C-alpha cells in the first residue's frame, strides 16, 4: 500500500508532464525534448517565491500562508512556463514547420541543451532546496501512512487532468486543437488560425508542466538543473506507453510508470532504487517493439 501511494504521487507528476509531450506530438508530430527543461524552469521560478512567502524559521507554517504561497508560485510558474513554451515554439519550431521531421527534432534537442545550460548558469549544479511550504501532517489510509502533501499532489493532478479533458473535448478552442491535429490543411480551410492553435497547445502544455513543477518541489523538497530532463524522459515513456498523441493515454501511462518505478524501488529493501531507471526504459523498448501505438492508441489514434 505504501508503494501504491508513492507510485500514485509519482505517477500523477509524470502524467502532468506527459500531457505536454503528448499534446505537442499530437498537433505537430514533434517530440519536444525541451519540455522537461521547461518543467525545471517552473521549479526554479517557484523557489524564490516560496522563499519569500514562507517563514523559513517556522516549521509550523500557518495554513493560510501555505495556501497563499503555493497558489502564487503555481500561478507564476504556470504563467512563465506557458510564455517560455510559446516563445520556444515561435523561434525554434515554427520556422521549421514545413521542414523534414528530423530538423525540428534535432532543434528540440538543441533547445533542451540551451535551456539546461541556462538553468545551470542560473542556479548552479547543485540541487536547490525549498523551504517547507506546507507543514506535514500524516493520515492513515487502509493502514498506510499518507501525508497531506501526497494527497494534495494526487488531488491537484486529478483536477488538472479533468480540466484539460473538458477543455479539449468540450470547448470550441479544444475542438479546434483536435481539428488541427487531425488535418491541419482542412483546419486552415475552415479559417482556423493554425499557428495560433499550435501556440495555444504549447501554452497549455508548458503551463501544466510549470504547475506540476511546483507540486514536484513540494513533494521532493529540492530540484536540480537537470531534474526536469530526467523526469521528462520518464514522462515521455509514459506518453508513449499510453499512446503518444492520446491525452487520456498520457494520464494512464503516467500512473502506470509511477507505480512501476515505485514498486521497483521498494524491492530488495531499497536496493531496487538503482534499478528503476533501467526497468522503465526497458518498458519503453518493450512497448515500442510489441505495441508501438501504446495502451490506448490504435493505428489511427486520435492526436491531441
Amino acid at each position, binding site marked *: 500500500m505504501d508503494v501504491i501511494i508513492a507510485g500514485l504521487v509519482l505517477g500523477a507528476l509524470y502524467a502532468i508532464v506527459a500531457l505536454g509531450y503528448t499534446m505537442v506530438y499530437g498537433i505537430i508530430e514533434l517530440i519536444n525534448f525541451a519540455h522537461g527543461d521547461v518543467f525545471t524552469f517552473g521549479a526554479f521560478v517557484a523557489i524564490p517565491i516560496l522563499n519569500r512567502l514562507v517563514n523559513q524559521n517556522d516549521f509550523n507554517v500557518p495554513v493560510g500562508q501555505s495556501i497563499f504561497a503555493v497558489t502564487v508560485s503555481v500561478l507564476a510558474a504556470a504563467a512563465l512556463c506557458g510564455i517560455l513554451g510559446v516563445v520556444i515554439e515561435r523561434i525554434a519550431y515554427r520556422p521549421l514547420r514545413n521542414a523534414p521531421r528530423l530538423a525540428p527534432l534535432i532543434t528540440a534537442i538543441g533547445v533542451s541543451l540551451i535551456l539546461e545550460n541556462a538553468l545551470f548558469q542560473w542556479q548552479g549544479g547543485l540541487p536547490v532546496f525549498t523551504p517547507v511550504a506546507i507543514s506535514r501532517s500524516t493520515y492513515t489510509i487502509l493502514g498506510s501512512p499518507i501525508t497531506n502533501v501526497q494527497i494534495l499532489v494526487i488531488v491537484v493532478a486529478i483536477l488538472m487532468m479533468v480540466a484539460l479533458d473538458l477543455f479539449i473535448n468540450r470547448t470550441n478552442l479544444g475542438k*479546434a486543437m483536435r481539428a488541427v491535429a*487531425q488535418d491541419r490543411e482542412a483546419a*486552415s480551410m*475552415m479559417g482556423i488560425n493554425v499557428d495560433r492553435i499550435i501556440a495555444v497547445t504549447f501554452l497549455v502544455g508548458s503551463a501544466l508542466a510549470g504547475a506540476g513543477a511546483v507540486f514536484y518541489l513540494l513533494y521532493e523538497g529540492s530540484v536540480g538543473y537537470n531534474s526536469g530532463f530526467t523526469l521528462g524522459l520518464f514522462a515521455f515513456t509514459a506518453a508513449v506507453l499510453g499512446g503518444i498523441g492520446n491525452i487520456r493515454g498520457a494520464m494512464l501511462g503516467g500512473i502506470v510508470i509511477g507505480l512501476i518505478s515505485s514498486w521497483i524501488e521498494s524491492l530488495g529493501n531499497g536496493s531496487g532504487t538503482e534499478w528503476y531507471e533501467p526497468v522503465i526504459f526497458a518498458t519503453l523498448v518493450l512497448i515500442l517493439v510489441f505495441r508501438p501505438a501504446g495502451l490506448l492508441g490504435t493505428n489511427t489514434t486520435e492526436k491531441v
Partner: protein
Amino acid sequence: MDEKQPLLEFRDVDTFYGSLHILKDVSYTVGEHEIVALLGSNGAGKTTTMKTILGLVQPRDGSIHLGDTRIDGRSTREIVTLGVAPVPEGRRVFPKLTVLDNLKMGAWTRKDREIQQDIDRVYSLFPRLAERKNQLAGTMSGGEQQMLAIGRALMARPRLMILDEPSMGLSPILTERVFDTIVEINKQGTTIFMVEQNAYMALNIASRGYVLQTGRVILSGTAQELLSSDMVRKAYLGET
C-alpha cells in the same frame, strides 16, 4: 456577364510547383449566383485551381479577385473569412470529431448568434446528418461524409462555395442527390464553382463551364454549348 462585376475572377494566372508549370495563363470568371463547372482530365490543373483560390498555392503571375478584393497573396484564413468555403477533394472531414463538431468548425470564422439556426438548416438539408450528429465523422460512409463536407462549408455562410469532385467515390444515386443539393444551395443564394470529372452531371446543373487541358483553358462557354461541342462529347461523355 460583362455588365456586372463577377464574384470570382482569375486574370491570366500562372502557377508552378517548383519548376513545374501547372496553370498556364488561365482566366476564369464566376458571376454572382452562378453555377460554373470546371472540367478536365487528371493532371489538367483542376485541383490546383481550387488550391490557388484558397491561397494554398500562390500564383506566380496574374491576379485573383473576389468581388472588389484581390485575394492572391493572402492567407487561406483570410480568404475563407472573406466568404469562400471549400468542399475539398476527398471531403477532408475531421474523422475523430462528431458530425456536430465538424459543423461547428465550419462556422469558426463567425461570431454571430445564428450558428444554431444554420446547424438546423444543414440538418433539414441532410436529415441523415441530424440522425448521426453525435457520431464520429470518420465512421460514416463516403456519401454521408460528402454531405457533411458540404454542410460544413455551408456553416461559413459563404458567398462562394468551391467543390472539388463532389461525386468522387459516390454511387450514381448518391451523386444525383448531392447534385440536387448543390442546386438547392445555389437557389438559396450561394455561388458555386465546381471541379468535376462527371462532365454530364456537372453541365446539367451549371450555367457555364470551362475545359482545362494540361493547364490551359481550351474551351469555355455556356453549359449548352459545351454539351453540344464535339470535343466535350468525345473526351468526357464517351461518345464517338
